[in-house]
């Protein structure tokens, strides 16, 4: 479908100068800046992952030295967690679509939004600097006392980079919260908001409440290393487990910073491609907030074998199960939405299905790890590695890819080749499962994580995993190629290629500089697809 080829003013073609990009306060351009930056970080983190899997293809660990291996998995974790996953959906899709979906001209603090990107990039540069000048070998978790007393690598520098990038995260969350509270268009009540906005609000809440604690924790590590102001030092009576408490107070909720936005995206996609209102809208909305709140009550399950008291371990274990409730509410409601829906299998929908499958596996194996007895057996094995990759890669990244494909025509005004996109989605799905499913078995058999040499009987499964990783790598390259291709050669998408509801589809593609010609007035609930009759379109 093509619309008029009249040269129309949009946010992309108003100004082409580099200055207009680097000094922009337009949330849509800032989204593009983030998109480029985090794709770069994803590539770097992915390269580390590739080297890890390559090294693990043989049990003897002959490819890299022990020290290098430690640095590889550390830098893979740091880059992927703090510089890709945490900003992934919020800073890109959130930035672009929160103002549009509530009918605003911009976020509440546009200059702060740009500043966040600079802060993020500066933090990233510090971390890359730490990486180039020798790397870090503590694991992305920076556990004391190794990180404070033993490691001779660039711990302080990397911690500083994350500290700085943390401010970007805080300011983004703050900006989004105020935007959703104060910038909604007339008629856009809380319960008319698309579920993506609810999930972004919940995510912002976690960013604002959790990130400062990570900042102070990393600062304490740096203070101990650089100024001898140590409070985790066992020689002085300090308790390294206190570090774990503070670290996981942020880092467990941080998992929800990664997954909750994807859940929001999946709600949008499922509604649009089954042409139904999301079943139990209010429940799905509140389950996002519930995850944000409960997420702060369960951090102790990371400390079960670290010397946590038995009594508090029991409380943390029980509360960890509670998080399963809002998560299950979402999965059941998505399934119920599909029921009797008019489902079309466009690329975003494939990613959404992939998300539900992998999030369910990741979530359920999380329950294994939350149970006190089983966790002792599984802690620090590949079972944990597989579990959180199912959540973070299988969940968060699938949601991110799905959202990117769903909104790409809106963001760029052009369609990508659907055939290639489907091939890409399937490749990623297969590659991912082949990479990480064997790791559940490996972990259950007792292969510890973060080791570089392993007994020969584990080799078959490790080779399978490494083979899956190469398929996964190709899977990520396919979208990179066709999405870039589509920027120039893709067919014109039109304003609403999916025939979807929501304010973002009512403006032009790409949207004009101020999003709407006139401030929209909202008169209907979200996902008003109005029955099945009109739905047999695509």
């Amino acid at each position, binding site marked *: 479908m093509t619309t008029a080829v009249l040269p129309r003013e949009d946010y992309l073609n108003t100004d082409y100068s580099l200055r207009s990009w680097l000094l922009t306060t337009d949330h849509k351009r800032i989204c593009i800046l983030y998109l480029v930056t985090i794709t770069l970080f994803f590539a770097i983190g992915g390269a580390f992952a590739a080297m890890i899997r390559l090294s693990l293809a043989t049990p003897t660990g002959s490819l890299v030295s022990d020290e290098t291996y430690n640095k590889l998995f550390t830098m893979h974790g740091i880059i992927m967690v703090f510089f890709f996953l945490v900003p992934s959906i919020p800073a890109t899709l959130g930035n672009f679509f929160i103002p549009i979906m509530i009918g605003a001209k911009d976020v509440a603090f546009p200059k702060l939004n740009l500043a966040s990107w600079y802060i993020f990039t500066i933090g990233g540069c510090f971390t890359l600097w730490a990486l180039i000048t020798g790397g870090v070998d503590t694991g992305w978790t920076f556990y004391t006392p190794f990180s404070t007393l033993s490691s001779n690598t660039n711990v302080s520098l990397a911690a500083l980079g994350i500290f700085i990038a943390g401010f970007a995260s805080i300011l983004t969350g703050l900006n989004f919260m*105020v935007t959703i509270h*104060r910038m909604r268009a007339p008629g856009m009540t809380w319960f008319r908001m698309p579920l993506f906005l609810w999930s972004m609000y919940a995510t912002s809440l976690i960013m604002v409440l959790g990130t400062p604690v990570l900042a102070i924790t990393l600062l304490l590590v740096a203070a101990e290393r650089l100024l001898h102001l140590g409070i985790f030092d066992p*020689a002085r*009576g300090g308790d390294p487990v206190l570090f774990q408490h503070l670290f996981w107070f942020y880092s467990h909720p941080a998992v929800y910073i990664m997954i909750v936005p994807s859940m929001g995206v999946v709600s949008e996609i499922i509604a649009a491609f089954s042409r139904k209102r999301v079943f139990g809208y209010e429940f799905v909305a509140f389950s996002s907030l519930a995850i944000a709140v409960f997420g702060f009550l369960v951090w102790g399950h990371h400390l079960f074998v670290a010397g946590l008291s038995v009594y508090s371990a029991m409380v943390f274990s029980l509360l960890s199960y509670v998080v399963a409730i809002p998560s299950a509410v979402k999965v059941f409601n998505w399934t119920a939405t599909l029921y009797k829906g008019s489902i079309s299998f466009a690329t975003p929908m494939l990613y959404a299905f992939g998300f539900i499958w992998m999030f369910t596996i990741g979530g359920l194996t999380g329950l294994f790890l939350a149970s006190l007895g089983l966790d002792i057996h599984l802690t620090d094995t590949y079972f944990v590695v597989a579990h959180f990759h199912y959540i973070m890669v299988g969940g968060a990244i699938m949601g991110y890819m799905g959202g990117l494909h769903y909104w790409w025509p809106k963001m760029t005004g052009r369609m990508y080749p659907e055939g290639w996109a489907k091939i890409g989605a399937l490749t990623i799905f297969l590659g991912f499962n082949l990479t990480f499913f064997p790791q559940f078995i490996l972990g259950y058999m007792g292969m510890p994580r973060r080791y570089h040499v392993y007994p020969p009987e584990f080799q078959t499964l490790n080779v399978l995993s490494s083979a899956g990783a190469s398929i996964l790598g190709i899977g990520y390259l396919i979208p990179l190629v066709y999405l870039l291709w589509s920027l120039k050669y893709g067919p014109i998408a039109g304003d609403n290629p999916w025939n979807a509801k929501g304010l973002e589809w009512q403006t032009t593609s790409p949207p004009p500089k101020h999003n709407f010609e006139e401030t929209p007035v909202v008169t209907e609930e979200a996902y008003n697809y109005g029955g099945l009759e009109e739905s047999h379109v695509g």
Partner: protein
Amino acid sequence: MADIASTEAVHPAGLQHHFDSLEQQSDASTLGMWVFLVTEVLFFGGLFTAYLVYRSTYPDAFAVASKHTLIALGALNTAILITSSLTMALAVFASQEGNGKAVIRFLVMTWILGASFLVVKGIEYTTDFHDHLVPGAHFFIEGTNIGHAQLFFSLYFIMTGLHAIHMIVGLGILIVMMYMAGKGKFTKEYHIPMEVAGLYWHFVDIVWIFLFPLLYLIDRHK
């Protein structure tokens, strides 16, 4: 609402393009500052947690160590900060009335008080240094476990140090406010920056209000 061109025609001073009214803009800014203060609460909250853990684990060492802090200077600084909060509140009050000259006068007073706080803190740090209270090889305290006492002084320096950094940032903000007031930016209708700056300044005061008893007062009698 009409299109962008015509809104700019009736554009009140200080209104940014993406807001509909000054009220919406002021609302958003105040809300933003409060949310930011929440992050600050949790930032210091991590330190308070560490303090809570160690004070409850090593009460005796903490009692002995905290007697080495300089209570007179701490109390003086508390008074200075409270006074600066008053002058700051009066500066905001003046900005609400659109009285630019009074704004500058009170801002200067606040600035001088803030700077005096830092000077007193500097004197304190110097004395601490000479008294071997800085954790590390030269640390020495009589009558208690040296390791546990170092935990106290590590927390003391990190907490007061981070507070001091917040004070320095605050002084910078005050200078910006003075500049804006000097340019005559603040009117009865538009004084959001002053309100927001005031919130920040008072918050930094509150942090000190808690640091003072925690580091100087508890178990002083022992």
